[in-house]
């Protein structure tokens, strides 16, 4: 049987959207897929050496439950969602929301993004950064983790054209 292949284009640069590409890629690798992720636009944030800038924002995100990851059950069950106009003027709102999200992630035994990213690399998932957006955003190759390759759309298609699964995230 030929090796199955999967390609992902990762375009989002927030903590929540960092999960799908790394979860799917690491799992695909565990299932024996040859896997590549092409990081472009804001997805480049996911392959920077420093991941501390990855945040999650409840602003303009009505699908995100805002619940406290600590305290008694009745307190955890409260939904703290508030109007966008109010969220927007509270200083540090995003930072607090990100801190709470990280706590929730840890409480649920969900892996951290640095861990999932390392697991992908250990499993030989190939990471390709879009050279055009690297330049567009003023990044240097030294901003990114080791083992990256740099290329453009044609590089992506070379592999994607032969895949069984191809996702845009």
């Amino acid at each position, binding site marked *: 049987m030929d090796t199955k292949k999967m390609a992902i284009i990762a375009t989002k640069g927030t903590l929540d959207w960092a999960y799908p590409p790394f979860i799917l890629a690491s799992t695909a690798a565990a299932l024996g897929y040859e896997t590549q992720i092409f990081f472009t636009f804001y997805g480049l944030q996911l392959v920077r050496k420093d991941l501390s800038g990855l945040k999650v924002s409840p602003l303009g995100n009505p699908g995100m439950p805002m619940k406290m990851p600590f305290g008694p059950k009745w307190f955890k069950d409260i939904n703290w969602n508030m109007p966008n106009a109010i969220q927007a003027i509270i200083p540090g709102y995003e930072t607090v929301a990100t801190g709470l999200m990280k706590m929730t992630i840890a409480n649920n035994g969900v892996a951290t993004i640095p861990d999932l990213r390392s*697991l992908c690399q250990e499993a030989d998932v190939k990471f390709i950064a879009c050279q055009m957006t690297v330049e567009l955003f003023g990044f240097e190759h030294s901003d990114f983790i080791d083992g990256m390759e740099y290329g453009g759309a044609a590089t992506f298609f070379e592999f994607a054209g032969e895949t069984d699964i191809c996702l845009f995230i």
Partner: protein
Amino acid sequence: MNFDKELDARGLNCPLPILRAKKALAEIPSGQVLKILSTDPGSVKDFAAFAKQTGNELLSTAEAGGEFTFFMKKK
């Protein structure tokens, strides 16, 4: 059931139990059995799917008090 290696994946959530199992299976020779403990309810379907796709044989799945036990034989 007899087993050659045990993996405690309790408290871990998707996809960690599968990734840890894959790693543990890589450390035992073909034909040996890996015992896996998990608390992730999603792992029941996931281990069945993992076995089907990788050719490793899922010998048994059991649940007791919110804890799942799997025995998997390496291909």
